[in-house]
């Protein structure tokens, strides 16, 4: 929403502050100014000049030499403009002044263009006559400006006076952010009301008094019927006869231009002006085009074709509301009129429409048809019915004022009864207790008065003006008090009530433990998207029937690449690694904590299982066991007390079949790790080996423990036995360790692999492995016999596995 400062001042005549002050105070009372632009920016020393005499330039055919009266004196200016004549008044920038841009109308330079005195082909020139482009505007908004020539001011302009004032450029244009609850502020009047309340100044609305032709009754000229009252609560019609089309007056053109509306002709300009002023879109029909002189408001039929004002054929459906005459549709309600009833220069009698349509329906229709207009975007917000009546009367008042038509007597109105003014009980204590303030009753009532909220002293009720649809309950009134009392004057306190225990929950604490473990291993934190492309599944080499492919689809995604909710966390991780690889970053280690989304069934009927997942991945320095080390650290820091088992697997097609493992805690799967399958790595564009670790956080958290207990020092000495073996290649370290643990009983304290070797000096089919076994009892000093007994059990077991001791 835009307004100019001067247009606001038209309703708040006593407004007198700097542009900046207006911006600041409006923003702090709730009408946020996004930005403002003074129209006289970079326009300096520009006055009215009267061209007294024009001579040919002695040395240039295309230049003329003008003697210009600039008030106190006459000065000489050379120009190449073709349209200057003696006796004209023109804007003149004097030497030492500034204009906003060049005559070509290109982008305006930030600091404007300085004008200096000088010689043009040897003839002295002390300034420049200005085109509208040089003044920073365009012919679009000043239709009376000539093309490629000097702007000609009205004949009554006084030489030497401020030309910018005459051009309406002593003004600033404000752009506001209007919140969705303040439908009334999508209008100049609405903002002016706020300005009056903000600056504590009187507010003067237009009178909307119409001088009517008492002999001609609107009800005899038109009838209105609403067939679908759910979509149209009110339709007002007025008729003006003896219409004379022509340009609208300058003041109206200037105001429209200042808010970015192009002036066209008096009739179109009046409807546009009223829309800006009241925030009520209007429509004008040529009454002679309205068959049967009747208006019927009804739903279109499915598949109905209609050609709108812009010449486009549109296909309508049953949920689109149309305005029809006795025979045919003449407009799409609230969106755009039809080509078939377009106003032409030859119009004699005009029919004005101001209606109240269902905002939601207008929004939905405009989306379906694919046509969003200024009118539809206002109707969408849901307008108050009184506004339409004021607006249509205002349009007729302007017809009077511009002498371009004569309103017939009365208005034809169809629709619901107008809503009553809402009433709310005045509760000053409640407002104060919500705000934490001590605003006096008197000050509150003063604020209400400025906001046109009435007060009945007898029953202490507030009467809400009809245009304030947003004031429904005490909290809304409290906000009005706060806004005009000043948010900055509200005290600053801290909640003093009940003490509460703050903190993170266990899920978050375990997540933090995992994150800091990863960071200790040199892994940096990544953030990946929750949605991705279904192509990821192919890149991960998942078969067609893989459960991972049962992903939730977004019905309106940004594109196929963001269309499904991820079920595996690897897409984001491998994409990120690949992007690093492409940037030639070395030895990249990343981890992520994010959800995967597992649907219980598809299509979705209940919310999916969102599983927080820890994912680590890297390429460069390190191998499988780097991630196994990280996994173990995460588990230890999460407080898993028992041993995790790593089972070799080859089930995951995105991992190397001989280098992947599932991690179990007892019977429960905690996650998996492995080297990325070379083809998958290639699919993502990672050269060389990459490794990933995935941990299901809910599973981890369910086994985690935050209990810490000191166990004391061991009081008795340990006995260490090293054991060196020839082990068949198919026997894994995990199997050996299980044997040691199972047969070691209570006295086995630790098992450490300290050497594994395969190659020369070891016979084919075997590897050499050496463990250091530490035994200790909590009750006594172990004897050789105690340890030998365990060692004997080990040897029996090892022998059965085909393992030989090395001497």
């Amino acid at each position, binding site marked *: 929403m835009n307004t100019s400062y001067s247009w606001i001042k038209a309703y708040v005549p006593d407004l007198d502050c700097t542009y900046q002050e207006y911006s600041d105070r409006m923003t702090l009372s709730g009408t946020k100014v996004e930005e403002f632009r003074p129209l006289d920016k970079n326009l300096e020393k520009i006055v009215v000049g009267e061209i007294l005499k024009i001579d040919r330039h002695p040395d240039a055919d295309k230049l003329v030499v003008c003697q210009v009266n600039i008030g106190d004196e006459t000065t000489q200016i050379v120009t190449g403009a073709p349209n200057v004549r003696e006796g004209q008044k023109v804007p003149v920038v004097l030497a030492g002044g500034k204009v906003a841009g060049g005559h070509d109308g290109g982008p305006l330079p930030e600091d404007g263009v300085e004008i200096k005195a000088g010689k043009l082909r040897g003839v002295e020139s002390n300034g420049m006559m200005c085109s509208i482009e040089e003044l920073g505007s365009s012919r679009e908004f000043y239709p009376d400006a000539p093309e490629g020539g000097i702007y000609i001011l009205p004949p009554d302009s006084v030489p030497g006076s401020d030309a910018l004032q005459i051009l309406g450029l002593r003004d600033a244009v404000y752009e506001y952010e209007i919140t969705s609850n303040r439908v009334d502020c999508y209008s100049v009047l609405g903002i002016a009301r706020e300005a009056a309340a903000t600056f504590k100044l009187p507010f003067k609305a237009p009178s909307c008094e119409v001088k009517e032709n008492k002999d001609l009754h609107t009800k005899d000229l038109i009838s209105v019927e609403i067939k679908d009252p759910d979509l149209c609560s009110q339709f007002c019609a007025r008729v003006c006869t003896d219409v004379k089309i022509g340009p609208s007056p300058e003041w109206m053109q200037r105001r429209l231009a200042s808010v970015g509306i192009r002036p066209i002709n008096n009739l179109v300009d009046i409807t546009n002006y009223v829309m800006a002023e009241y925030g009520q879109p209007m429509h004008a029909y040529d009454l002679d085009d309205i068959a049967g002189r009747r208006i019927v408001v009804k739903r279109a039929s499915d598949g109905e074709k209609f050609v709108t004002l812009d010449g486009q054929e549109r296909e309508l459906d049953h949920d689109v509301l149309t305005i029809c005459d006795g025979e045919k549709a003449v407009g799409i309600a609230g969106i755009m009129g039809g080509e078939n009833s377009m106003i032409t220069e030859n119009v004699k009698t005009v029919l004005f429409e101001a209606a109240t349509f269902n905002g939601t329906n207008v929004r939905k229709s405009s989306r379906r048809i694919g046509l969003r207009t200024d009118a539809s975007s206002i109707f969408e917000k849901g307008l108050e019915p009184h506004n339409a009546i004021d607006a249509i009367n205002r349009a007729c008042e302007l017809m009077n004022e511009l002498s371009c038509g004569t309103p017939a007597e009365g208005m034809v109105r169809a629709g619901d009864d107008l809503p009553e003014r809402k009433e709310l009980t005045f509760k000053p204590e409640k407002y104060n207790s919500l705000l934490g303030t001590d605003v006096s009753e008197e000050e509150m009532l003063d604020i209400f008065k400025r906001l046109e909220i009435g007060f009945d002293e007898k029953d202490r009720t507030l009467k809400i003006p009809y245009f304030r649809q947003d004031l429904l309950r005490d909290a809304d009134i409290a*906000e009005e008090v706060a806004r005009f009392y000043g948010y900055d004057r509200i005290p600053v306190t801290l*909640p003093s009530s009940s003490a509460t225990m703050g903190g993170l929950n266990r899920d978050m604490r375990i997540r933090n433990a995992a994150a800091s473990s990863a960071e200790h291993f040199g892994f940096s934190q990544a953030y*990946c998207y929750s949605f991705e492309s279904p192509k990821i599944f192919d890149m991960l080499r998942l078969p067609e029937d893989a459960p991972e492919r049962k992903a939730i689809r977004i019905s309106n995604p940004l594109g196929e690449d963001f269309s499904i909710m991820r079920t595996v966390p690897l897409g984001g991780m491998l994409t990120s690694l690949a992007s690093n690889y492409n940037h030639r970053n070395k030895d990249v280690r990343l981890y992520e904590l994010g959800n995967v989304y597992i649907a219980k069934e598809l299509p979705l009927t209940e919310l999916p299982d969102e599983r927080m997942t820890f994912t680590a991945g890297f390429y460069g320095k390190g191998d499988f066991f780097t991630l196994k080390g990280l996994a173990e650290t995460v588990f230890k820091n999460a407080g898993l007390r028992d041993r995790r088992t790593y089972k070799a697997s080859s089930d995951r097609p995105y991992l190397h079949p001989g280098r992947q493992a599932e991690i179990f805690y007892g019977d429960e799967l905690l996650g998996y790790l492995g080297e990325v399958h070379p083809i998958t790595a290639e699919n993502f564009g990672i050269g060389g080996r990459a490794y990933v670790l995935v941990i299901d956080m809910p599973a981890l958290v369910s086994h985690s423990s935050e209990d810490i207990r000191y166990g004391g020092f061991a009081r008795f000495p340990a006995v260490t036995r090293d054991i060196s073996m020839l082990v068949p290649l198919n026997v894994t370290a995990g199997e050996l360790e299980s044997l040691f643990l199972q047969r070691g009983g209570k006295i086995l304290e630790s098992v450490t692999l300290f050497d594994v070797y395969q190659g020369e000096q070891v016979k084919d089919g075997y590897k050499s492995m050496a463990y250091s076994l530490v035994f200790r009892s909590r009750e006594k000093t172990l004897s050789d016999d105690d340890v030998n007994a365990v060692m004997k059990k080990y040897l029996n077991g090892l022998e059965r596995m085909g393992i030989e001791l090395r001497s």
Partner: protein
Amino acid sequence: MTGNLEQIIRDAQKAVKEAATNEDIEKLRVKYSGKKGEITALLKGLKDLPPEERPRAGEAINKARTQIETAIAQAQAGIREKTMELRLASETLDVTLPAEEVPQGHTHPNTIALEELERIFIGMGYEVVEGPEVEKDYYNFEALNIPDGHPAKDEQDTFYINGDILLRTQTSSAQVHEMEKGRLPIRMISPGRVFRSDAVDATHSPSFHQVEGLVIDKGITFADLKGTLEVMARELFGEETKVRFRPHHFPFTEPSAEVDVSCFKCGGKGCSFCKGEGWIEILGCGMVHPHVFEMNGIDPDEYTGFAFGVGLERIALLKYGIDDMRLMYDNDIRFLDQF
């Protein structure tokens, strides 16, 4: 005998002075006080003296022994000191050689900003809770006073899974879950991921993060909201930070406000960073709307509360001077390494 003894002492002291190593000293010790040493021999010879001479001679020999042993001990200490000096001198390091590098991972700037917020609010007794990212329409809109057809529902370009299930557009949905639990008072923050169908560019991302705050109790006021957020702003952006509350509108709060902080680059004078305004918008907030209370079974005449929502990326971008939102999701190690 006495003359002999004095000669022995003189010889010993001279020899000790000349000794350069521990081995030399050890040899001297053996020579004089060893089992077959000279002093030991003299002591053994005492028994051959007449009994009346023995005490005097004994005393003299012991005195000589002490003198020699003291000389030896001093020499030993001197040698140890010299050896230590030599060792230390030979061990001088070039302390300007590079430090040992321990690979260190880095926390994402979003997380750092979140941890800051968590620290601030946990300190004020706030519990941190989380809600689902795939959410029912009811929690994201309806229960927050945004019924079907409400313009705010269209303003937030929502990703839908189907008519009833969507990707949450705001962490405010967590407010509803918290109120539903029926435990009062409430003091919580709820961080999390939210989604809006904005195409990726330097300032937009279809997925980003918010931190919602909610306090409900008897007697909570707008002044409390102001105080709380001023604490937050000062903790986040520095003690000098000024805070400005501007009236605004959100369907689920009334009164509502947007909060600006004084530009921390220029201190509020206006610079290119704050586009000349001196203020930077950081969040939206307000008093919980009475209708939201009613929808969630809380009596608005008994309880009041405030809520606020902060964009985490916005804080991180501002605080760490990051100029492009896309960096936050590219996971380029050259970016992450700087945090």
